[in-house]
């Protein structure tokens, strides 16, 4: 009896308008939703022979982590492109970003297969350039850019520490804003 009385004396529930409720629901759903398709992420994960089964929460977490990775990688590549005052981001910028930050060290092996990044294959392209004029022009442009890059590498060394800090701060601030 006393327990029932206590419940009756409780304060009434605060009411909200339907529009406010809908806005908050949409906001929460946007936070939880991920932009990558889960089926594809699952396929990529299961290509590993070690992995047997994967939890639903783990799948969501992996997709969100992949989003974070893409954002951070594109941010670093964009900075490298901005240093050379170019509007188009190229593979070279991504390659530089991978070499500068130690967190991306595991990606160095992944890019061994790309023929354009290896010097030996560049020579092969140069040899094949003798036959076709279009290829010659492309190789010449690439060589010039390479020389230009080599000259700037020394200048960029003292800025690596600052860039790392900036990346970390940017990543944290954006997530702080989201939540």
């Amino acid at each position, binding site marked *: 009896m006393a327990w029932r009385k206590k419940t009756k004396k409780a304060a009434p529930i605060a009411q909200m308008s339907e529009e406010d409720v809908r806005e908050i629901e949409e906001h929460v759903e946007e936070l939880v939703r991920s932009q990558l398709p889960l089926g594809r992420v699952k396929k990529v994960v299961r290509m590993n022979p070690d992995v047997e089964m994967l939890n639903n929460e783990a799948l969501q977490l992996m997709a969100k*982590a992949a989003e974070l990775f893409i954002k951070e990688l*594109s941010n670093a590549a964009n900075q490298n492109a901005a240093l050379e005052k170019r509007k188009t981001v190229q593979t070279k910028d991504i390659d530089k970003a991978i070499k500068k930050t130690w967190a991306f060290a595991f990606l160095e092996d992944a890019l*061994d297969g790309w023929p354009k990044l290896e010097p030996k294959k560049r020579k092969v392209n140069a040899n094949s350039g003798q036959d076709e004029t279009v290829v010659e022009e492309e190789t010449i442009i690439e060589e010039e850019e390479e020389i230009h890059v080599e000259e700037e590498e020394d200048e960029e060394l003292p800025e690596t520490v600052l860039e790392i800090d900036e990346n970390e701060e940017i990543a944290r601030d954006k997530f702080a804003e989201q939540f």
Partner: protein
Amino acid sequence: MDPKPINEGMLLEDHDHGMPEEEEITEDDMNGIHNIEEDTRTISEIAMELHHPNKSQVLLDQERFLPIANVVRIMKTQMDPQAKLAKDAKECAQECVSEFISFIASEAAEICNITKRKTITADDLLTAMEATGFDNYAEPMRIFLQKYRQAHKITGPIHRTHPDYVRPPQFQMDPFVRPLFFDTEQGRRCTETQYVINGSEIVKNAPLGEEWNEQTGTLNTRADGYYMEEPMEPMPMEEVEIEEHEEIIEQDSLGAIALEQQGQMQIYVDPKTKQHFAAKETPNGMELYPLIIQDTPLQLENVSGPNQFVMNMPDGRAIPHGMGQEEPQPVSSSSVMRKIGQNPSSYAQQHHHVSHVEQHDDVEYEEEEEVDQVEEDTVPVPIAPRPAATRVQPKRTPTKRKK
């Protein structure tokens, strides 16, 4: 001169034998890397000679990579609107992302093997990120996991950090994320409402300072052990939140009408809470719901203030608008109606309806149930989901009767 015929031979092999590529991909990682080299060469040569890059790229993307459109969309959020992306850069980023996913997944798989488990959980992924040096990812991911569990009303284990993990400096000022529910010596505790249910007593506005250490982010009493919420019931739980604009009248018929007017109803199956209410209010089943209605928002309003109250209220409502949550809604509402319609009935029938609700919960979380059972290694999981559902039920009913 020499490399040309070799490449041509590889082209012929690739076109003639599509099957060995798939077989090689399923083998070791080194073979996978080797296949990547072959594929890139074939792509470049096809673009030069045959002028059909779309076909081969589509096949490769569907097999190994995430879709380019989604990756590029995410990349452009970090770039200026005027900036452009070269095709090579897009493909390179695509490959980097798939490499990242497989890298972390393999680390998590090793962690599972250490503890002799086969299913990778979210905590394993967090531990893998901490072990591999992705500290900047671990903290936001922990917050994301907490928000995800809140939005879907899922309870899970407390994350145990890797022993070598050190929090990065920019996150040191952030507080650790608390779990939604955990058990303490005083009783079962909920962080959102800050009340404790211990047997027949309910303590409101209980402070968390004594039990939850803010600095280390662990429980004081059980800091050493790995805490799992109620291992006897691995199924994730769904919360009961019924909102009414009118007071519920105790009469059966009028009460039923009042519940019909309510649009959104959800069921949270917490066995301790449910046992408590059912045991206390056996003769009057009506007041099982009013208590939940009045306690939760009341505590939020008093303790955390209006802003957080506004944020936390729709979390419960978000579930019926979710993708996978829409289907079971009418089933749960019908079961609730049946309970109200049969108030004067005996306790056994009410108990039957309770088990009926659990059946739907089993159907709803079919996959997760199998995963959890495999984790425990105590109950063998059959392939068919239906016999698993039937096996789970008889274990719970006798315990309730004994209590």
